[in-house]
């Protein structure tokens, strides 16, 4: 057998390109590893400081007054957070879905592009700016209230929900729409009866992600719903209410270490909530996408 006159092994420039290729690959892998490591370090350090102060009282009692700051819990802040985020969701979910329906189903393509861009931009607005905005139109005249905080959170949620919803509406096959339209059913009825029901799973997971996102908001709440709050559980949205994030903020710069460890415990609670809900929502969304696509 003759020796072949060529080799299939990498030589010269190809060899150099391969080395560069491997080097860049290693660099990228390192960066990815770093990102994961940062998350792990945050989770571990918050966990190690916060988990110790977690007990049943932390979730079921209000702050003990007077000389015993160690006792009691942050029930009032948990209730406040639930009210704030709950009302924000009630406002943002229907509006966000309507916006998404307009953008993906009804708007002429050019308007849809503009609306989509507007949503992406409002997604990037610093939340403190939204806080100031709500402050000037509501709080300056009517004083602080949980409702004002909820409105700010709803403004943050709206583009998140609208974009997530729009994305799943686009996944609904157009043959489903055509089936309904060809029966002489209007565009709007088709959207309500056919398109939204098949996109429902995706809409709900998108909403869950938005909830996880705003549950950790602090800045806009600081000057909308933090003054003169009571440290007993209160669910009236017309009163200013505390939230977990506000408690972390105010407890962490108290001199008394009992408050500081409560701040860590609240941080740990919030972090777990956000991690678990976003992870669950992402998993659900992936499964749902597969179902719609297949």
């Amino acid at each position, binding site marked *: 057998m003759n020796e072949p006159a060529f080799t299939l092994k990498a030589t010269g420039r190809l060899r150099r390109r391969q080395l560069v290729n491997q080097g860049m690959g290693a660099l990228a892998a390192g960066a990815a590893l770093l990102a994961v490591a940062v998350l792990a370090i945050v989770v571990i350090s918050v966990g190690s400081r916060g988990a110790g102060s977690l007990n049943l009282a932390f979730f079921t009692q209000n702050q003990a007054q007077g000389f015993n700051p160690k006792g009691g819990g942050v029930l009032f802040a948990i209730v406040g957070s639930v009210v704030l985020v709950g009302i924000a969701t009630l406002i943002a979910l229907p509006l966000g879905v309507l916006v998404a329906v307009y953008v993906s189903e009804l708007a*002429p*393509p050019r308007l849809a592009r503009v609306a989509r861009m507007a949503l992406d931009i409002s997604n990037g607005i610093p939340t403190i700016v939204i806080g100031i905005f709500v402050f000037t139109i509501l709080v300056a005249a009517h004083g602080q209230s949980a409702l004002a905080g909820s409105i700010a959170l709803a403004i943050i949620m709206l583009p998140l929900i609208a974009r997530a919803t729009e994305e799943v509406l686009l996944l609904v*096959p157009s*043959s*489903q729409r*055509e*089936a*309904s*339209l*060809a*029966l*002489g*059913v*209007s*565009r709007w*009825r088709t959207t309500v*009866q*056919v398109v939204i029901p*098949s996109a429902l799973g995706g809409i709900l997971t998108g909403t869950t992600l938005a909830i996880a996102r705003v549950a950790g908001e602090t800045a806009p709440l600081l000057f909308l719903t933090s003054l003169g709050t009571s440290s007993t559980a209160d669910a009236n949205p017309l009163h200013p209410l505390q939230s977990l994030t506000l408690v972390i903020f105010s407890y962490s710069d108290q001199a008394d270490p009992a408050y500081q460890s409560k701040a860590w415990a609240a941080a740990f609670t919030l972090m777990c909530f956000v991690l678990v809900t976003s992870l669950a929502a992402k998993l659900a969304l992936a499964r749902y996408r597969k179902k719609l696509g297949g």
Partner: protein
Amino acid sequence: MEAIKTKIEVTEKERLPVVSEREAVFEARDLAVYYGDQRAIDGVNLDIYQRLITAIIGPSGCGKSTFLRTLNRMNDLVPAARLTGQLRYRGIDLYGPGVDAVEVRRRVGMVFQKPNPFHSSIYDNVAYGLRILGMKKDLDERVEKALRAAALWDEVKDRLKDSALGLSGGQQQRLCIARAIAVEPEVVLFDEPASALDPISTSAIEDLMHELKRDYTLVIVTHNMQQAARVADMTAFFGLDVSPDGNRQGVLVEYDETEKIFTNPSDKRTEGYVTGRFG
């Protein structure tokens, strides 16, 4: 060597009404459809007659689907689509002012190439249009009637509450036909309704079309010439034409009784197409 010719048998139909007794449901006059700047069909003059089956045949891209989708204003959904010339439906300008596309589609139903049942039960698929269009009286009877008319009732009567997605492709397509006729349209358009189906389901759909002809005007786009010859009373052959400006558009080459199109076409291009020699 003798050219191999597929011999196409034209099925014997009940006698066609003589030309003067045919009633035109659609009248296309110098119809052209554009997608943006591109002309998809041009200069189409064609009458579609009541209670007959009209087949539209022709090479891929010659605008068969485009023409079909102008008949129920389905092409309104394509933002870039526009139309010149005239299309009358029982005397009314279909694209005239004040004509509502939703009302048009109520009267002119459509069955698509790929079966597209809703992700709900068999019963709800058929009842969907009835409920929304307010035909809720005797809903069960109406659903049964539509399923019977679509020759599907015996296969599904014991599992009406089951998901429609569990049906075979051929059953799904008959379900889509049942869904379309449940709302009692006047015309049903079929865009290659059997191209995704096996031969047995295909012949079930063809038999069904013969039954439906008694009550409905049917228009079917098909690539399968045997199918056109078997089911259609009238056949329109669309061809591709390149105009001096370089635009490739579909034009109506020949339109006549199916028998004539397949046995004695007057245009060379039709003859080439139906005998398998393209040109």
